[in-house]
């Protein structure tokens, strides 16, 4: 356990030194908050600068607070996912490639600890950034539109966080299995994309797919209640995370650290 803490603390410290603790949360704040701000001010901006012909009526119905907050989440589904994948793809593959992994793992370090500490470090960063960003989005939405009940906020936060955790774990898995950061990032993004598209198109068949979690979180905000399949989808997500982590360790252990 103390060895795991040593590894974990190193991850946390590294993210301080390369400013991840600052720029990732800030990015999440900016991404999220841009939604309520543009939805609120855009009609006004169009009105002042639009130069629309005399007499034309702009009738953009103001979106509901739930829809605004949900569109904040959709920012995280695209750009947020991109940042997470690009920021995580190198955590194992990069260390393997540079040779520092060999320096560390030639010490009596457990492979499970090595990989799980990196996973946990990234996980903490993702949840922290999502929380800060999403909370700001919720606050801005409340200020400019309506207040979403805090319970709904938290529920959608946890569901969405779970989906991001799946994305993160897939990235860690490929980082451990493929050994080249670029390839790991590319495949992880492709998988996240394909999963979202497929389960969007076949949503009635794949209600339990973890990629539905993002949709279920927005459904909670727009419709006001959770779809029935939230629980199975969450359980599948957790199962998938555990399996992928275990497989990462298994595959990484089989690789030679030097070549």
């Amino acid at each position: 356990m103390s060895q795991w803490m040593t590894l974990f603390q190193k991850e946390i410290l590294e993210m301080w030194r390369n400013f991840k603790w600052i720029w990732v949360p800030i990015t999440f704040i900016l991404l999220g908050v841009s939604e309520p701000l543009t939805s609120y001010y855009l009609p006004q901006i169009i009105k002042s600068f639009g130069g629309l012909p005399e007499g034309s009526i702009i009738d953009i119905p103001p979106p509901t607070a739930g829809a605004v907050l949900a569109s904040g989440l959709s920012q995280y589904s695209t750009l947020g996912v991109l940042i997470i994948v690009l920021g995580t793809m190198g955590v194992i593959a990069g260390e393997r490639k540079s040779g520092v992994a060999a320096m560390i793992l030639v010490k009596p370090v457990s492979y499970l600890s090595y990989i799980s500490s990196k996973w946990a470090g990234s996980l903490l960063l993702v949840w922290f950034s999502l929380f800060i960003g999403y909370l700001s989005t919720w606050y801005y939405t409340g200020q400019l539109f309506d207040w979403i009940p805090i319970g709904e906020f938290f529920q959608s936060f946890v569901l969405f966080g779970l989906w991001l955790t799946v994305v993160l774990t897939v990235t860690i898995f490929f980082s451990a299995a493929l050994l080249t950061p670029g390839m790991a990032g590319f495949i992880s993004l492709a998988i996240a994309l394909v999963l979202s598209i497929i389960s969007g198109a076949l949503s009635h068949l794949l209600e339990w797919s973890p990629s539905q979690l993002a949709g279920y979180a927005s459904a909670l905000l727009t419709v006001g209640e959770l779809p029935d399949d939230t629980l199975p989808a969450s359980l599948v997500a957790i199962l998938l995370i555990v399996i992928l982590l275990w497989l990462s360790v298994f595959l990484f252990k089989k690789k030679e650290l030097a070549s």
Partner: protein
Amino acid sequence: MELLEGISWGLIAPIFFIQLILVIVSLVDLSRIEKTNGPKLLWVFIIVIVNIIGPILYFVIGRRNN
């Protein structure tokens, strides 16, 4: 004028502020880091000129890890 009056500066100011932090932090990191992907000077311009996206691009792409 009407537009400016309609803006709540209490909400906008913090955004400008953290954006500024992002720019400063990325410039500090850029000055400390040994090598970047592509010329350093180019990144200075990207960070300063390209609003919001510039610093993020720097951290995601420009920063060479290990």
